[in-house]
């Protein structure tokens, strides 16, 4: 069985990390969906590897389900949302690109700070990959905060979930196959509900820009 060297794991994690950086820099909804699908494809690949390594049919099913839900179904729903509401226009953020990059640098540096250093005990050989996965979690949260678009916020949450999956894979913290199925089912339901809400927001506010949601402001 092929063994994933620390260098190769770091390489995979770097690609995942860069995909979130591109999500921040890119202004097109379609590209962000593509980046998410690409990110999920890598995660599915990693899960397939894990399943074959463990020689577990159940884990193969989990990896297959992950592929179906994250690479095919979720992007399909997002594309439908774009097509239905003609949302091909650019996405907007609160901070401009230079400031966004500055925050991203800070968050990445934070994940490598002494505060999170104890986490490297989880997998001393993959220290860099582990902390990069942590950085990916932080910048995914920042994507949710910085973006005004409903779609970007949804992708931010799903990207954060991908980051946690990659973190747990590197750290060897994977749950049992049954529980992973439960988590995946939760994600699928979450995507469906979030898409329904996005459509409702478009219907009521005529936009998917969250800065337009001002009905809760106290008068």
């Amino acid at each position, binding site marked *: 069985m092929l063994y994933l060297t620390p260098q190769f794991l770091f390489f995979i994690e770097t690609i995942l990390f860069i995909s979130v950086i591109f999500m921040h820099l890119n202004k097109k909804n379609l590209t962000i969906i593509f980046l998410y699908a690409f990110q999920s494809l890598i995660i599915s690949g990693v899960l397939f590897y894990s399943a074959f390594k463990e020689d577990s049919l159940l884990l193969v099913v989990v990896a297959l389900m992950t592929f179906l839900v994250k690479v095919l179904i979720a992007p399909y729903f997002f594309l439908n949302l774009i097509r239905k509401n003609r949302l091909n226009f650019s996405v907007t953020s609160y901070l401009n690109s230079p400031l966004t990059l500055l925050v991203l640098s800070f968050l990445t540096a934070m994940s490598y700070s002494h505060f999170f250093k104890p986490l490297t005990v989880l997998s001393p050989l993959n220290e860099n990959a582990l902390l990069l996965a942590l950085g990916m979690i932080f910048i995914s949260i920042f994507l949710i905060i910085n973006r005004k678009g409903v779609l970007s916020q949804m992708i931010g949450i799903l990207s*954060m979930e991908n980051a946690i999956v990659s973190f747990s894979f590197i750290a060897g913290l994977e749950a049992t196959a049954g529980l992973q199925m439960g988590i995946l089912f939760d994600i699928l339901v979450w995507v469906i509900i979030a898409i329904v809400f996005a459509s409702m927001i478009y219907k009521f506010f005529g936009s998917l820009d969250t800065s337009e949601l001002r009905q809760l402001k106290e008068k």
Partner: protein
Amino acid sequence: MILLFVITIPIIMFMFSFLIRKNLMALGFASTIALIFEFVNVLIISLYVVRFGNYVFNKYFVIDSIGAIMLVLVSLVGMAASCYSIGYLKKEVEKENVPFNKIWKYFALLQLFVLAMILAIITTNPILMWISIEATTLSTAFLISFYNKSSAIESAWKYLIINSVGLLIGFLGTLLFLYPATQNGFGFISWDMLAINALTFNPAILKIAFVLVLVGFGTKVGFVPMHTWLPDAHSKAPAPISGLLSGVLLNVAFLAILRFKNVADASIGKEFSNSLLIFFGILSIVVASFIIFIQKNYKRMLAYSSIEHMGIAALGFGLGGSGVFAALLHMIYHSLSKSILFLSSGNIFLKYESTKIKNIKGVVHSLPVTAILFIIGFLSITGIPPFGIFFTEFSILSVGIGTHPFVIILALFSLVLVFAGFLTHVSSMMFGENENSKEVGKENVWTILPIFILVVILIILSFYLPSDLLSLLQSAGIGY
């Protein structure tokens, strides 16, 4: 076997809702009867726990003392909310505020919501608990947006996004807690297994894990500063759902934190988790008290009061000793009082069609029975004797006065501020009179009876704690 009923009743009722979707009364009655049956089963299980210790169904589902208390609260408040919904929704359908074809979905989702909370309480596995708590978010999102108004959709979106981020942070913390178990190949991981093997944990990782869990599940509990979704969601949801969200869901999320605290304490001692709970507790109490004082919307006022009371419970657990017993009892009193207040606020909303305090005047004249029930709830929630909350707050504050005098003085000042705020707002709503005052209206028995039952239980428990409950509380407090 009884636990099988507890799990399957909401599932059966969920499916049954579709079959009787054309009859509102049948839907409401079936849902309420199902939850009464649920309540009876839960009571039997709780009595078993009192007599014989943990109720073990299988390795996946076990009910301990704290779980039994939470289960009783979920089924009791669920039963009251379902019964109240009959009259509440009937009125809303008549006024055409809610389309009739949405009613069955309401009752179906209500059952799913109750089921998700039950599973979160009874599961022995931390990840299954996370999945169940995430399921509560998913099942309630549509209930919060039930009115299909732009503000309700906005609050539901905020609820969905903030809670999802919070729960993902909690998920990362949960995975870190499982680290030694996954390394040693324990297979199915339970709370007990984690506690037994607590000494094998790396203390530094455990500290990070507990902070993540506290922030993550604390978002669902409504601790400041992760609370921002709570006032919006609780104020925009239909009154019975607000009662359930505030009365029991916060407790269930708190239970998740307590389960992790138990494991963390066994490894790194109580000081770390206790100081964090005291920090989040006092912050929640202080911030909520100021906002309650200047509040303009009575449902938001009740929502902020929930944040304040979760803060008080956190303070009790953080201070330890007899504060733990008081905090557990406080959660029971809060559940009952807050459900009473939210359900009676539903009657006020039905009459006045507004949630703004300035638009509500003379409730004692227009809705005399509701006014009495609301005032009882107000007196209880602000900790006026002889209601139980007075004694629990007094106990918690007296535990901490020696060790954390500054925190206790701050908490005391905040409690006075909360009382002053509530008194001003409630007296203006109950006794004021202006052009918006309404004629005396006939109060529907379905929107009074469940509140009345909760009031009776609250009053009885304020004066007398049955020995079985006392024994459950004492054994639930062990270890915290």
